[in-house]
């Protein structure tokens, strides 16, 4: 293999791309893994991982200048002192927009897998089927049964902590033991069980090693120590990241070439063969251009960038972007509606507290619009539920009296609850990303242009959530119930997906059931760009399962 020729090229060394690389390398394929960001080596490149809270100059806050210069990324809850270096500052890759969109990026080897909140819920058959049966989308070309073995495959390797709940709306997976839940979580769970037969409060499945197995030890990972500063990188490898798991694994096979600081400009298309034959890359530092060649190209640059790369891959055969005969590339772009929250106080558990910190929470899977559309809105929502009891600080007095109050033995505030709707958004042609033909970035690549917004269905879903959860809180005896609409624009959910959707029919979709471009079969789009609909679950487990499945389709096709 020469330095520029490979059997496969994977664009993007994040959550999904690292899975493609692992699968290919495990099976002897000489693979080039490209990432536009710098190398981040597990342990070596986690400069803040072991910093104590008091070692941060502003005690976790960001400087005003920093926030002013980064109004978009500063809105992300995880963008805090100690983790900012794993995010992309706003001016690095600007974009244009018709309606407000917050594009939160993490460019480095490992991508956003370093930063994620590690929530990992499977999709069910309802999530795949209802867009079509309830008439708000096209039919997925695959269903739950197609993906189930790949979920299992990924879960075993990643390590998912969870409980077997036996729900068909949220199928069980391959679980490590669950972490403990709080007294209020338990109370809520029993109240919901008593009052609703179709609603369930469950432990939110998460990618933490609560009891590492042999396969995790082989990766060099250990048990999660409940530090809850995961976004700085975990010295124990307690949570799944590409950096701690899939990438070093692929490297150990000897089949992987990892090239950081390599900005993919476009996919190269060979008019003679009717196939892609490589990629054009710009060195992020020297701006020098290179071409790399391979039998197949996998796009895993994150939904927005994968679509942008395809749109920018123009040839005389494909003047509007590779595989874009029907003009749908960039359209049906989706996200999750995270605007609606509801908080309350939870009197009655004064003798109970938590001891330590948990990196996860509890969760309610979808409970309406399951077999048929039963509500005035379409689609589903789930609910992430956070309960906590914080230390109380008595700060009224002054001097020695104040000091005594502050140093007093544990005093606690009442328990509180905060629940967040995670809403499916409907696939719509007008929600789209495109290239801005008039503006280019520092590499001469056209900027991405967003036209993505909420609609009336999103508002109706929020109203339903508020009403239902006011009722649930009321039954649970919670008080001071507050509806919250954060008003946040799409994007802050960081669950961007779609734009190159899978489908059965080449006329209404971009990819086939194996994540291949309908018309260029050696190009796979195996990240969130492929999503035909959004459902409501945190999507990365599904992306990883789809990526592993696509990689194995390529392996099979070579035999």
């Amino acid at each position, binding site marked *: 293999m020469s330095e520029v020729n490979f059997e496969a090229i994977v664009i993007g060394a994040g959550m999904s791309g690292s899975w493609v690389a692992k699968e290919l390398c495990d099976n002897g394929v000489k693979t080039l893994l490209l990432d536009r960001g710098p190398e981040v080596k597990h342990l070596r490149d986690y400069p803040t991982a072991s910093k104590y809270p008091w070692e941060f100059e502003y005690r976790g806050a960001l400087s005003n200048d920093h926030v002013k210069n980064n109004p978009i990324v500063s809105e992300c809850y995880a963008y805090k002192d100690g983790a900012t270096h794993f995010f992309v500052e706003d001016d690095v890759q600007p974009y244009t927009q018709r309606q407000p969109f917050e594009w939160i990026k993490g460019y480095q080897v490992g991508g956003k897998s370093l930063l994620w909140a590690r929530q990992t819920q499977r999709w069910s058959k309802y999530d795949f089927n209802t867009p079509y049966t309830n008439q708000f989308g096209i039919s997925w070309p695959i269903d739950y049964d197609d993906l189930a073995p790949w979920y299992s495959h990924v879960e075993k390797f990643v390590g998912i902590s969870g409980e077997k709940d036996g729900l068909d709306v949220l199928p069980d997976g391959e679980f490590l033991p669950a972490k403990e*839940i709080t007294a209020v979580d338990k109370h809520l769970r029993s109240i919901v069980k008593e009052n609703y037969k179709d609603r369930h409060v469950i432990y939110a499945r998460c990618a933490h090693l609560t009891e590492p197995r042999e396969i995790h030890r082989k990766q060099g990972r250990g048990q999660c120590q409940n530090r809850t500063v995961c976004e700085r990188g975990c010295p124990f490898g307690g949570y799944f990241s590409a950096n701690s798991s899939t990438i070093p694994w692929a490297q150990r096979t000897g089949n992987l070439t990892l090239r950081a600081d390599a900005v993919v400009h476009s996919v190269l298309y060979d008019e003679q063969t009717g196939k892609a034959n490589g990629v054009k890359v710009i060195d992020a530092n020297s701006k020098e251009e290179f071409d790399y060649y391979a039998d197949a190209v996998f796009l895993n640059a994150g939904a927005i960038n994968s679509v942008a790369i395809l749109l920018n891959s123009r040839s005389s055969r494909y003047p509007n972007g590779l595989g874009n005969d029907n003009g749908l590339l960039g359209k049906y772009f989706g996200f999750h509606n995270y605007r609606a929250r509801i908080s309350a106080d939870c009197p009655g558990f004064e003798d109970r507290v938590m001891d330590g910190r948990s990196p996860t929470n509890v969760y309610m899977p979808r409970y309406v619009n399951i077999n048929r559309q039963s509500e005035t809105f379409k689609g589903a929502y789930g609910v992430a539920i956070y309960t906590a009891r914080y230390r109380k600080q008595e700060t009224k007095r002054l001097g020695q009296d104040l000091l005594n109050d502050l140093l007093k033995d544990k005093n606690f505030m009442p328990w509180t609850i905060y629940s967040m709707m995670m809403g499916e958004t409907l696939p719509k042609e007008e929600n789209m990303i495109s290239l801005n033909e008039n503006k280019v970035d520092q590499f001469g690549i056209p900027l991405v242009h967003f036209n993505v917004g909420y609609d009336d269905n999103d508002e109706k879903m929020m109203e339903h959530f508020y009403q239902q959860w006011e009722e649930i809180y009321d039954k649970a005896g919670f008080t001071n119930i507050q509806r919250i609409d954060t008003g946040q624009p799409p994007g802050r959910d960081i669950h961007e997906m779609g734009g190159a959707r899978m489908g059965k029919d080449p006329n209404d979709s971009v990819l086939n059931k194996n994540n291949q471009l309908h018309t260029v079969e050696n190009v796979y789009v195996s990240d969130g760009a492929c999503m035909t609909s959004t459902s409501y679950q945190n999507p990365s487990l599904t992306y990883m399962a789809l990526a592993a499945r696509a990689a194995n389709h390529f392996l099979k096709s070579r035999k």
Partner: protein
Amino acid sequence: MKRRKAIRNIVLFSLGTGIIYSCKDKYEAIKQLHLKHLIIDTKQLDILDDLSRLIVPLQNIPELADHTALPFIMNMVEHVFEEKDRQAFMKGYQSWDQEILSIKGRAFSAMKIEEKQQLLSEVNEESLKASQELYTVFNTVKEKSIQYLTTSEYYQRKVNYYQMAPGKFKGDVLLVDLKNKNDE
């Protein structure tokens, strides 16, 4: 010789960026902040230092006897506060002594400690008729002094029993059990 030159450079640099220092070493840590927005002289620093020590007397905690919250307060206001809050804070400490003089007939810096304490409890109870900026200074110094203490290593370890890697998370424990465990 070298060291003296370095110190002189700091003072010159600081003057250039809007801070007037006496040669007191007490505020060395503040000099090192190279404040650009906040203009402050030693007398005003003395007032803020006094306020902080009277409100949260760190000096009474043996482990923190040599700590002062003042550099932290100044750093937070300089870098984390928004411009309008920073301006209000600055206006507040620049007129503090004069305002107290006009209200009480005696400048704050000329007061005995008991008088200062009495004055601060009036401000704390919001019974003193004073400017918005005076209250901004008081509330900022109080809030940030508390934050300095409660996020300190001493407090986190001794009072919050902070552990970087606690290992276990227990979701549902009895408060008494937690207290007993922490007393062990």
